[in-house]
């Protein structure tokens, strides 16, 4: 078994390999394999796996890719991630990708799919319209049709017909993947010093660019390491980070939050990998329906899912309570409509519930966090001073 440090270092390399080298190697190992890039937040990677493909998350260039061409496509008041995605693609980082999936997140990502189509990038470009109707016989059926559409594109490339057996097998692998990621968060809930949030981030993000079998093997080892009493507790409050689900904060910012005095016991940085809570059924002869049903019934709260029948503020408050967190940090990418439009909803509700929070904005390419670090530090100190305040009450 590798040491935890070795695994983390490996994941650091993988997570920010903006040339997606492992995907390229994997594709070259066998004829008929396809590589499909997908944008944040969530995409059912199982279906690509079952079609002899690898779904690779494209989370932008972060602070590691200078933007030159991408800026020519976007006005200054549009978030940063579409320009860094375009920069990566136009610079040939994804030449080995066969197709691209744009899950419905917001108007920016939606229209980015149109730019890809216009420029004829890849063999196919699919805007994946996730249902906002949550009745299995209506929205569920539509979602299955959307997945079938993706599978038709892949079949045109490699001729692979996805059978229920193949898909059930793939679902099983991703179920295991999600179980282990949740195990890491469950351990960190009580022992956050065993693995820093920065390391967790790298480990999960690495899973977006390598085959699930390889990621599962890494996660097995990580889980084994952190099941043991390692590390030294520090005097920090526990917080949940919310709002950073698409354009990612620079790693330095993720690190800075913890260094400033906050153990992050839950977050939505890599929401796509954790979107489905619990397992998806692997015993059915209609696995697309199983994926669809899981999306409808087992999704985490998200700014991209219409929530009036299941309000997000109560769902986040429940996470805060369940994780024993002291407060919430709302971190939104600048100009991120979904995150910023949710902010008043969360904040008005949390004012009433007595949940403490702070909010700030970031951009993926900004790596100066002095002000944010001070803000987080003050937040942490203030909560420590208010230790005797009443605990959070949730009236969902």
């Amino acid at each position: 078994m590798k040491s935890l440090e070795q695994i983390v270092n490996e994941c650091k390399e993988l997570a920010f390999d903006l040339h997606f080298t492992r995907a390229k190697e994997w594709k070259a190992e066998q004829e008929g394999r396809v590589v499909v890039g997908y944008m944040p937040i969530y995409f059912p990677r199982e279906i690509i796996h079952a079609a002899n493909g690898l779904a690779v998350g494209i989370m932008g260039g972060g602070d590691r890719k200078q933007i030159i061409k991408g800026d020519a496509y976007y006005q200054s008041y549009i978030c940063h991630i579409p320009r860094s995605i375009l920069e990566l693609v136009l610079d040939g980082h994804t030449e080995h990708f066969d197709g691209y999936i744009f899950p419905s997140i917001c108007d920016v990502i939606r229209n980015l799919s149109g730019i890809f189509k216009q420029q004829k990038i890849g063999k196919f470009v699919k805007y994946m319209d996730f249902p906002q109707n949550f009745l299995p016989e209506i929205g569920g059926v539509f979602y299955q049709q959307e997945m079938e559409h993706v599978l038709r594109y892949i079949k045109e490339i490699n001729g692979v017909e996805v059978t229920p057996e193949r898909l059930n097998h793939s679902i099983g692998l991703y179920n295991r993947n999600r179980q282990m990621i949740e195990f890491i968060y469950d351990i960190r809930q009580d022992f956050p010093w065993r693995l820093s949030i920065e390391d967790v981030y790298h480990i999960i993000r690495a899973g977006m660019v390598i085959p699930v079998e390889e990621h599962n093997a890494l996660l097995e080892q990580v889980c084994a390491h952190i099941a043991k009493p390692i590390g030294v507790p520090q005097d920090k409050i526990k917080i949940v980070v919310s709002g950073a689900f698409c354009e990612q904060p620079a790693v330095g910012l993720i690190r800075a939050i913890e260094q400033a005095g906050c153990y992050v016991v839950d977050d939505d940085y890599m929401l796509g990998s954790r979107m489905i809570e619990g397992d998806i059924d692997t015993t059915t002869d209609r696995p697309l329906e199983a994926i669809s049903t899981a999306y409808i019934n087992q999704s985490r709260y998200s700014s991209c899912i219409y929530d009036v029948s299941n309000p997000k503020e109560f769902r986040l408050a429940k996470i805060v309570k369940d994780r024993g967190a002291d407060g919430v940090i709302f971190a939104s990418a600048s100009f991120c409509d979904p995150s910023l439009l949710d902010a008043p909803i969360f904040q008005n509700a949390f004012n009433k519930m007595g949940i403490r929070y702070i909010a700030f904005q970031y951009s993926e390419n900004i790596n100066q966090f002095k002000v944010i670090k001070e803000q987080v530090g003050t937040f942490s100190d203030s909560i420590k001073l208010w230790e005797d305040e009443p605990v959070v009450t949730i009236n969902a």
Partner: protein
Amino acid sequence: MAQEAQKEMSMIIQKEMVSDLFNELARAKETGKKVCYTFIPGNLSELIRTFDMLPVYPEINALQSAMRKKSGGYIKEAEKHAHSEDVCTYVKCDVGMMLKGNIGPTGEKIPEPDVLLLSYTGCFTFMKWFETLKREYPNAKVIMVHTPYQENSEITPEMTQYMVKQFKEVVIPKLEEVTGIKYDEAKLKRHLTLSAEAEDWITRIFDTTKHRPSPIDAYFAGVYYIGPINIGFRGTQEAVDYYKELYKEIMERVAKGLGPITPEGEMKEEKFRLVVEGPPNWTNFREFWKIFYDMGAVIVASSYTKVGGVYDNGWRHDPERPLEALAEYCMNCYTNMNIPQRIDLLSKCIKDYQADGYLTNSIKSCNSFSAGQLAMMREIEDRLEVPVGFIESDLVDPRYFSYSNIKNRLESYFQMLDQRRVIGADIKEVEA
């Protein structure tokens, strides 16, 4: 002192229609009519009328507030309540108006909604907007209709069926529940017949810009022309009559060889014909328009007048397929079209209406329009070799309208168009 705007019969008719609607809304409590908040893109006017409801369009309230110079205050009010500076200003204006007592454009209080009918078409923010409204109006019934995006430049049977199922199994039963009125398909069909008629007329109206000089401005005046068809009158005889009258007036202008009417009277000389992409600025609407007509620029087509429906390519509400027609209508609105479709549509406008240039008014807080506009502009420039221009403003936030910047950019753009014309004439002379 500002010059009195020239008024034609169609303007008076429209003013009365809108005023009657707001008066009806003010009396909704007394009359017992149910109030339905909904949006312009994908508006289900015919269905709303079938259930005898009164529509309220939050984005119309916002733009009207802007034209009355009230939006700045409303936006600041919303920002005090955690709304970001960087999001849709329609939303903030609406929220601010609500926080300040929900007094509508006529000075009367807009009634609270009985129904929040979200036909989620072409704009992600609509969804967030209604999530916000639901929290403000917890007693309102919320109805979501998910309109699939034309991601592959087409409306597939599956997309239509998805919407029809939502109408049958969610929307109509909930509307029956709220209004206590049984769904009457024959009534819906009658409204749809009238919708198709109004759509024929508005298509003819916007087609008159093929004339030289163009008898209308298809952007600055166009936003008034689309009023009745978009704000709840589509599907009524009133709308048909309005558009017939408007068409008659425009054809009279064509017969006389007259240009468009501006707030300062008739535009005397048509120097430039433009196609404009993007919504207008509402806070300084008249100043904005004046820059154009002072320079002799007329807009012969615009994407904004297609947000409430695209009828250019012959699509009409079909009363024989009522629910399918509603579905197709929603999916066919401009912002529900993908970028290649938008490019094709605007390119066709440039060619059909013999435009000299293509101008983008990029709106800071409207990603549905703005994201992708630069790529569209470049493609159109390459494809048609038409001079392109680019300005930036906002919908209803007065802080983002910079008169001098916009004027400078437009003046440079018009100079470029002029130069192109001179060079073009020289080349023709040499070739001859």
